[in-house]
């Protein structure tokens, strides 16, 4: 038992000041610090173009960082990239599955590339095909697979070599809700099963909230907030009322602070975010105050605070999902 506990405390991924600059001008990733414990699921959440894929590319030794350093599975990504490569699995945002091969052939080929012995390959292939529910379709060409099936095969491919760390770049991109749920379930099972560490990137809030032990919010190349999903929205109240409108938002904000059931009130962009104890109860009073403060209200809504609100709070911008 203590052994497992000690193992868990080992760091699977560690980055210090990781930076990637293109053409001396474009800073794709800037000064990223990261510590991810073994056996946990970590999610990079951010809008498209925030630098998530670039970060993953560096950690998986595809890209060399301009500055900073990182260790993955105990090895330096620049000094010993091959040792890193032996211990990681990667699935990519663009499905890099060969159309002409069958699912089984894709896994077989991957195993051979990583020099897995024949018997081990066969064993892994049948285990993984069962796990992702593709045993029946295994011998059909991947060209005939649906989007969901391709993502599941991709997941199996990343796990073929029994890696210590699995990187998933947008694992449910483009999938319908049912398929997303299935992939999430597989990911959760993986975490339960052992000491696998998972680092995923996503621009879906619900994915980060639902899967991750810890979330890192990335915006414009920087890690702007980090913590468990619960911690990131803590202090925002049990419910969040958002009022979008024009007028003296700051003044309105100050006014609200006088109500004792308001936990937090802040303005971001053209919104006022109000953390309250129970949104539905307090809504009327809030709208009344807004009108009294001569605000021209465009929109009001109530929800439990989510990572999108945390994003808005930290970056001052709306988090847009595609």
């Amino acid at each position: 038992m203590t052994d497992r506990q000690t193992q868990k405390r080992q760091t699977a991924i560690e980055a210090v000041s990781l930076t990637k600059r293109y053409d001396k001008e474009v800073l794709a990733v800037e000064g990223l610090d990261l510590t991810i414990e073994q056996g946990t699921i970590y999610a990079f959440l951010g809008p498209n173009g925030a630098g998530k894929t670039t970060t993953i590319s560096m950690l998986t030794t595809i890209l060399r960082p301009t500055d900073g350093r990182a260790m993955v599975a105990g090895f330096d990504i620049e000094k010993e990239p091959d040792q890193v490569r032996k211990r990681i699995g990667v699935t990519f945002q663009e499905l890099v599955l060969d159309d002409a091969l069958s699912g089984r052939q894709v896994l077989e080929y991957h195993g051979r590339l990583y020099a897995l012995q024949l018997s081990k390959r066969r064993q892994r292939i049948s285990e993984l095909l069962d796990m992702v529910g593709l045993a029946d379709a295994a011998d059909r060409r991947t060209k005939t697979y649906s989007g969901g099936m391709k993502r599941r095969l991709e997941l199996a491919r990343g796990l073929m070599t029994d890696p210590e760390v699995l990187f998933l770049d947008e694992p449910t991109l483009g999938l319908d809700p049912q398929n997303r749920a299935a992939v999430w379930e597989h990911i959760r099972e993986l975490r339960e099963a052992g000491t696998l560490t998972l680092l995923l990137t996503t621009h879906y809030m619900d994915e980060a909230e639902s899967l991750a032990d810890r979330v890192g919010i990335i915006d414009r190349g920087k890690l702007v907030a980090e913590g468990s999903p619960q911690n990131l929205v803590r202090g925002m109240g049990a419910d969040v009322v958002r009022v979008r409108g024009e007028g003296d938002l700051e003044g309105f904000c100050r006014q609200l602070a006088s109500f004792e059931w308001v936990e937090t009130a802040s303005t971001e962009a053209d919104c006022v975010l109000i953390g309250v104890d129970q949104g539905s109860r307090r809504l009327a009073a809030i709208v009344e105050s807004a009108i009294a403060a001569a605000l021209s209200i465009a929109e009001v809504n109530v929800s439990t605070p989510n990572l999108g609100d945390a994003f808005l709070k930290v970056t001052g911008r709306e988090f847009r999902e595609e």
Partner: protein
Amino acid sequence: MNALLTIWGKQLRKMVVHPEEIVGLLIQPVLWVLLFGFGMRGLMDATSSGNGQGNYLTFMVPGIVALAALGGAIGGGNEWLTERLRGFVKEYLVAPIPRFSILAGNTLTILTKTLIQALVILGLGFLIGAQGGGSPIGWLVTLVLIGGYAAGFAGIALATASSTDSPGGYHMLIFILNMPLLFASNALYPLATLPTWMRIIALMNPTTHLVSGMRGVLFENGAAFAAESTLPLWTSLLAVFAFAGFGLILAACAFSRSIRKV
């Protein structure tokens, strides 16, 4: 080594499952042999010394073999370009394999395709009446010559495919090369009858050396067509090897630049 064989093997299997690509690349050379060969034969034979010496088909086939080899290189480079643009390369890059084996595997694939193309055309040529046939050593030398020629163009094709980001750019570059390679050589007409400036260009064209070498060892010197004299064999071999080296080094440089960019 394992990685190289795996990559090569995978691409070979795709070739076997989808032979359309190879067949498609063969169409142009086959048409050259059949149409141009037969078409010109009448004219050429009539204007030659007219005593049974002179078989234009025999004369022309080595040049078409070169064209076929070029076609194989184009196809292979295209395959690499597609893999790059669709992000397949990333799978190779995150694998614990030597970077070199990625390039080597692709080069071997191209060499294979090119050799197959060349041998098909050679076979066709003999089938429809080219006169020749050489000793086993002669055939070996032929394979070596074709191999070197193919390696050189494989290198150029891979270098181009590693450097462009659009299929259009790649094909344009290759098509530009196509015509001069055939016409600025001794493939279709003897060196002796060319104007000096053209002869100089032809001597710098690896095609000339491949064709000359093949004529010498396989085709009884093109049946001494129009007093064509082949270049010394060692010159041809040297030229072809130098070309192969050039092409492969070019590919290695372009390749390492492209993966660092990624």
